[in-house]
């Protein structure tokens, strides 16, 4: 256990020693903390209208300005962060809880189970993600839950494929064979032996999928089929702001900056994490090879 802790701390330390990752983590922490404490730190209610001050430019009173109904845009951007982060978290949970077992079973058993499960994944991939989500929303109707489920389902294929690839590479390794030979059940082997050894590519996937989910949620809201108003959402703000480009250019620009930085941060974090883990992995392999060499 302490060894595992030590390794995790090591990864975190190496991750944060890279400037891009450090800046990304700092930005994401600020967004998450502000979003979580919104009720105590934001002086405006994001849905209360004030028709005496509509489309005001940014000022000391309203840092991001106000929208066409006089609502404070910064408050809406901060509450919009909640929508985005919660959608991302929910989508990752949905995609992971369905995708990972699919990949485990397909990779572990192979044969007809593999063929059927992978065809299902192919069906999910037969449409570009955003269109799949739109088709689902067309059926389920437009709601917060529909948007969450739609974004989550589009993430299933990547989890399934990565897990499956991971299982295939571990399947014939000694420690997995050993558990099998000792009579460990397949379920035990899948969840207790293979899965714990697959966490690094899955962790990278969690970060990358969060960024994809936030982008997809915003895109759906921008298209007018995402989370319905008056719930604040970055995509919805850009959608409405686009109608006021001449009167209030800041309206669509400022929330866009917040959204773009969030996506870029998650993307940078995911790629740096992949790089750090791979480097660690390579070092580990080298150490293994050396040990092997000294034995022979």
């Amino acid at each position, binding site marked *: 256990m302490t060894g595992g802790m030590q390794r995790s701390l090591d990864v975190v330390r190496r991750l944060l020693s890279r400037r891009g990752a450090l800046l990304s983590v700092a930005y994401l922490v600020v967004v998450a903390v502000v979003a979580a404490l919104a009720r105590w730190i934001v002086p405006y209610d994001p849905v209360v209208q004030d028709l005496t001050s509509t489309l005001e430019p940014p000022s000391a009173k309203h840092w991001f300005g106000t929208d066409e109904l006089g609502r404070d845009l910064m408050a809406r951007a901060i509450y919009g962060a909640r929508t985005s982060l919660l959608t991302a978290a929910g989508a990752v949970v949905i995609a992971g809880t369905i995708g990972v077992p699919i990949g485990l079973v397909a990779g572990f058993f192979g044969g007809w189970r593999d063929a059927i499960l992978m*065809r*299902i994944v*192919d*069906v999910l991939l*037969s*449409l*570009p*993600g*955003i*269109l799949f989500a*739109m*088709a689902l*929303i*067309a*059926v*389920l*109707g437009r709601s917060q839950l529909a948007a969450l489920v739609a974004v989550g389902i589009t993430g299933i294929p990547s989890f399934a494929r990565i897990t499956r690839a991971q299982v295939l590479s571990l399947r014939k390794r000694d420690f997995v064979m050993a558990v099998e030979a000792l009579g460990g059940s397949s379920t035990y082997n899948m969840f207790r032996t293979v899965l714990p050894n697959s966490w690094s590519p899955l962790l990278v996937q969690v970060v990358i999928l969060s960024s994809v989910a936030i*982008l997809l949620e*915003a*895109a759906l809201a*921008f*298209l*007018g*089929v995402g989370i319905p108003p008056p719930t604040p959402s970055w*995509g919805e703000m*850009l959608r409405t*702001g*686009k109608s006021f*480009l*001449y009167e209030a*250019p800041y309206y*669509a*620009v400022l929330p*866009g900056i917040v*959204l*773009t930085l969030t*996506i*870029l941060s998650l*993307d*940078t974090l995911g790629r740096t994490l992949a790089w750090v883990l791979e480097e660690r992995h390579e070092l580990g392999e080298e150490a293994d090879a050396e040990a092997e060499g000294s034995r022979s």
Partner: protein
Amino acid sequence: MTGYIVRRILQLLPVLLIASAGIWAMIYAVPGTPIGALVGENATPEQIQAAIQRVGLDQPVLVQFWAWLKSAIVGDLGRSIFSRDPVFDLIMLRAPATLQLGLGATLVGLILGIPVAVISALYPGSWIDRSLSGWSALALGVPTFWLGILLILLFSVELRWLPSASTYVSIFDSPWGAIRNTLLPALTLGVYVSGIFARFLRASLLSELKADYVRTARSKGLKERDVVGRHVLRNALLPFVTVVGLMMAAFIGGTVVTEAVFTYPGIGRLLIQAITQRDYPLIQGVILFILVVHVVINLMVDVLYAYIDPRIDYS
């Protein structure tokens, strides 16, 4: 080779079948009755009768699906609830606009992406490589709908050079009008695509540069420009072809958002309009159309790749 193609098609058939069954089953999942979903609440008794006849709504479910699929295969996708026009005609009316936007965006992506990739691969790890990689990350990270808004603010609101809302003008009817109307959407989508192209081609170039034939070419005294231009680029472009192909397939998704930003009248706008109006035959038709195009392009890319690279094993 033929065997490989046949096997790929056989693999795709169940996928297409399940996906289209899902699209067809949509009318059972939506609120209201299937017949209401198909012809709308204000349909005349004749229209209702015609729809029941066409997809056999009085028959068992599997027979219904088969009837619907059979008409869909020959291009009969029913009629729009709103305009009462055949869905197939509505799609064909919009398809050229999306095709023109997609080709324009690919062109922009190649013009921006290839030089970025070549320059960074020539000087890997240098400051220029790092800044160009940063550019690719930016191109991929900035949401297309926000980039589109920024471009409208710059070119339409500030400079007043280009229209903020684009209409479809065919490049064959009026090249200048087509460029004026397609430039901003194509640039928006093209910047994103250039990021993918650049990243992929850079990786592909770097791995080629390590190959033995490059060392041979260098050691026989070939100029670096010829080594890269004549040998490396050609080999690196091979896997790149598939990425360009896959991008063309993904465009169908990307154009939906871009079309919305510029109110560009393509397939994507048609779908959004259909979803907001709950025009189910139109939704089904557009999604089925995109599904088939997407799957067929993916198949063609696979086959093309196997064809141009003889090292691929078909068996």
